[in-house]
């Protein structure tokens, strides 16, 4: 059981939808992102996704691309991201943390070393955008052995024939990408996403969270009706970009969380 599994068990008992928020490690500065990170659980965040900045985020829209650039310019590295998780864990030992990003910085560090340090730092799961099931031996299987969840993306192009392959080595939860496109783009409607979530739920016992393009508390509330969890990233990152203080960002996160929790 990871903290993710424990959290979903608690939420299921309370009949609550999970609210999952994304911030980029080191954006706009290591200090500011650490301040926001520390405040997320009190703002109502059930699961925290922390972006590991990368120069070439090919699945991300402008908001998260720029967040990564700001973080890299501020000197963020993979090791500093892990240090940020370690620091967070000194004050919070229950809120699950999922590290999200691209494979190259992990491959560059060395898979075994990364997994050992990520576990030790207190991360619970990984979402690595450019590792489909076809490349499971690279990181997915070693991660599961190291006790980390490997959370897979399912998308509108994942048809019924392919879905079992996508679900096979997934753990923690399934992240349903509500649109064909990049992060922070057009919003999908709960009406169109609902049947897709149901299609996935029919083939797995894992919780299904939905993300990409959810920007407001209202949209979060709508999506919460059809999914086990709602993910918001770009909308929060945009608040960081425009220079909001940590308090202002956390107030917005609290509105989103209230929306998702109903």
């Amino acid at each position, binding site marked *: 059981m990871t903290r993710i599994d424990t959290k979903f068990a608690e939420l299921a008992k309370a009949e609550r939808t999970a609210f999952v928020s994304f911030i980029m490690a080191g954006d706009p500065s290591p200090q500011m992102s650490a301040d926001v990170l520390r405040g997320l659980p009190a703002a109502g965040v059930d699961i925290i996704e922390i972006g590991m900045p990368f120069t070439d985020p090919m699945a991300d829209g402008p908001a998260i691309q720029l967040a990564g650039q700001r973080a890299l310019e501020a000197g963020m590295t993979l090791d500093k991201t892990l240090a940020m998780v370690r620091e967070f864990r000194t004050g919070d030992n229950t809120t699950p943390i999922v590290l999200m990003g691209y494979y190259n910085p992990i491959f560059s560090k060395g898979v075994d070393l990364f997994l050992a340090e990520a576990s030790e730092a207190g991360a619970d799961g990984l979402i690595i955008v450019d590792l489909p099931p076809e*490349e499971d031996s690279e990181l997915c299987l070693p991660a599961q052995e190291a006790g980390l969840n490997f959370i*897979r993306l399912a998308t509108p192009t994942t048809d019924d024939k392919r879905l079992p392959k996508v679900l096979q080595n997934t753990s923690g939860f399934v992240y349903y990408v509500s649109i064909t496109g990049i992060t922070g783009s057009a919003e999908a409607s709960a009406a169109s996403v609902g049947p897709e979530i149901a299609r996935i739920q029919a083939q797995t016992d894992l919780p299904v969270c939905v993300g990409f393009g959810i920007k407001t508390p209202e949209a979060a509330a709508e999506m919460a009706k059809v999914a086990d969890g709602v993910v918001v990233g770009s909308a929060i990152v945009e608040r960081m970009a425009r220079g909001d203080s940590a308090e202002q960002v956390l107030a917005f996160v609290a509105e989103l969380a209230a929306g998702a929790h109903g």
Partner: protein
Amino acid sequence: MTSHAPNSYSAGPDAQGRFGQFGGRFVSETLMPLILDLEAEYEKAKTDPTFWAQMDDLWKHYVGRPSPLYFAERLTEKFGGAKVYLKRDELNHTGAHKINNVLGQILLARRMGKKRIIAETGAGQHGVATATVCARFGLECIVFMGATDVERQKPNVFRMNLLGAKVIPVTSGRGTLKDAMNEALRDWVTNVDDTFYCIGTVAGPHPYPAMVRDFQSIIGKEVKEQIMEREGRLPDSLVACIGGGSNAMGLFFPFLDDEDVRIIGVEAGGHGVDDRMEHAASLTGGRPGVLHGNRTYLLQDDDGQILEGHSISAGLDYPGIGPEHSWLNDIGRVEYVSATDREALDAFQMCCVTEGIIPALEPSHALAHVAKLAPTLPSDHLLVMNMCGRGDKDIFTVAEALGENI
């Protein structure tokens, strides 16, 4: 297509799209079903004689193939060593080897019923070739080009516009080829139903590296026939420049199993291959990593962040290289060297006045190495260099480098 013997250098990639540890399919889930479709369609086309008949017809009548294998008499005299032949792929329609591959991919797109074609381009040669073939077949064409490159390659941008293509300047990252490729992938993820991504080099997720190589292999196949006709034997060495590496792969591939043929790839050494990292020599100055769908040698920092690289030639200015080259490097079948901006400029000028051929800056790198190598070889040594593009597009860059105002 010929069938490959086991243990052959030309048997790759395997079913997972790997050449040794290199290659693979490192893409987001949204794209996986698309590249699996493409692979299935390509496998069908590969063994379909009507597909190749169509390719041969277009290669002959539209592109102007076969391109000549030219004995460069005056360069040979100048070097005073090996007998130097130039494979004249710069005489192709659109002025470079790029169109060999574009034709294949566009015919595939038509078989798959795709109506919207996207491409990335650096110097603009692949963009121009894609715009050309799309015009020929009445397809919508969108070319992603780094904003920096749009600025330094204006004539090619105008050419693409004349051909009816839409050029989208990419401002993300630093606005060069790698950012253009990121943006093309983002477009593809967004427009999955009607769009075909026409990649310009032997990189990207499987099946692109193998597919682009197969389409470009026409270069090496022709060289084999032409040199047998001229000299009655195979060449002793082959030389080609490498950015992503498609012209080189096209020349090299049919010769990989001819172990007596020495094969040399020339990367862009920029200001010199050292720890300033002001070059684009992924093999001589990089290490393995994962980018744009494949594992290959990359220019990267200690944290695994991708570096920009530098070359005077926009077409070689890419921080990666095709995965098959990475494999050929590691097993030692192909030698990889580099030539600097300065050396390429010198070779460019020498070629103009010695052979009456204005080469592109890309093959000028290959020629710079030939200039070093040929004098050390005996006069019965047959050396074939791929003249993969013409230099009309580069005259402004060269003028600037020489301090001339035109």
